[in-house]
């Protein structure tokens, strides 16, 4: 079989974020590179969302398991900060999946993130922007908690970073 980068990325679509099972690692933006050597050795480079995220180790092992399951015997999976993650790396499809899951996707920003945007996060249930930040920390490192003044519900957001 002639391996291609696209083929590997398709396989990696199967690997989901264990804390947000609707989101693939590819859509999350943590796969920073795939290389295939002439001898067929596959190298996958990854980067953590948050440095202390306990799921990163699990995700790395899941990538290895998925490669093996598809008969790829020669591989290396690296985790590094060479191309650091930020929330702008979440794909459009990933953002849509987050919203359907009930999590507000992180707003996109230019160059410098001003955390004032946290005061007007769009509610994933009713789309209102009349919301307020309750706390920048949530059930996982990547989530903050908000309240919607329109539909009067608490909701969570995937934090912009």
């Amino acid at each position: 079989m002639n391996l291609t980068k696209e083929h590997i990325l398709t396989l990696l679509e199967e690997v989901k974020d264990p804390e947000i099972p609707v989101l693939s690692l590819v859509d999350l933006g943590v796969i920073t590179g795939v290389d295939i050597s002439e001898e067929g050795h596959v190298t996958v480079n990854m980067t953590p969302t948050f440095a202390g995220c306990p799921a990163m180790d699990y995700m790395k092992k899941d990538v290895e398991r998925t490669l093996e399951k598809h008969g790829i015997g020669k591989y290396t999976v690296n985790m590094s900060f060479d191309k650091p993650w930020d929330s702008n790396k979440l794909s459009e499809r990933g953002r849509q999946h987050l919203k359907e899951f009930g999590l507000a996707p992180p707003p996109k920003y230019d160059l410098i993130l001003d955390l004032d945007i946290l005061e007007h996060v769009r509610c994933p249930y009713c789309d209102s922007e009349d919301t307020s930040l309750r706390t920048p920390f949530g059930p996982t490192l990547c989530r903050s908690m908000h309240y919607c003044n329109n539909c009067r519900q608490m909701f969570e957001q995937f934090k912009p970073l």
Partner: protein
Amino acid sequence: MNEQAIKDLLYKLADDQLILGHRNSEWTGFGPILEEDIAFSSMAQDKIGHSLAFYTLLQEFGEADPDTVAFTRNANQFHSSQLVELPNGEYDFSLIRHFLYDNAEFIRFEMLAQSSYEPIAKVATKLKGEVKYHVLHANTWIKNLGSSTEEAILRLQSSLNEALPYALGMFEKSKYEQELIDTGVYAGEEAVKAEWLKRIQAVIEKTELKLPDLESTAPKYGGRYGDHTEHLQPLLDEMAEVFKIDPTAEW
């Protein structure tokens, strides 16, 4: 580039975060309200992750693996400032320490993101985005509580007076200070401290709190070179308890 100088810098960064991360984790299950319990627990997780990033860079310099470095040293081998090892006390003290520490940490990372030593610059670029949330959390609470009830203001003021000498101790200079500055690795403690003062003063001015007179406050130095209070060793003993029973345990 002087390897010893960079190792010295990495150790102080990593140790501060490991020890404060452990202290933050002591709030898990005890926070005054659920959101604060979650906040301190989340910051604990972040800080342990940040220490891991710096211990990993140390490993690339030939130091032992991160677990060994974190769990097998004694207090006099730690480069953390005395500020981070102090017991949590009540919530007001933990909040003041968090405010004083994280504002400094964020500035360190901003400056290190420009470091001429690329591995540190990459890690700092990443971590400063995370610490931004810690600063937002601290500043929000200080502004809210520091201008609320008489009791809140009194408690915060007394914790601020108590913590300040230790906070100034964070800026103890390295043996290699000038070299780190000259080679563009790190802007140095004086630069961090000057910017830190501006930022904490800007927050304090929005409250009823008063920053004690700095001229008459003697910094508590010593932590960077192994001189610690009696509080660090018991913390290390507790942190390493499982590791020392079975270093190969998976958990």
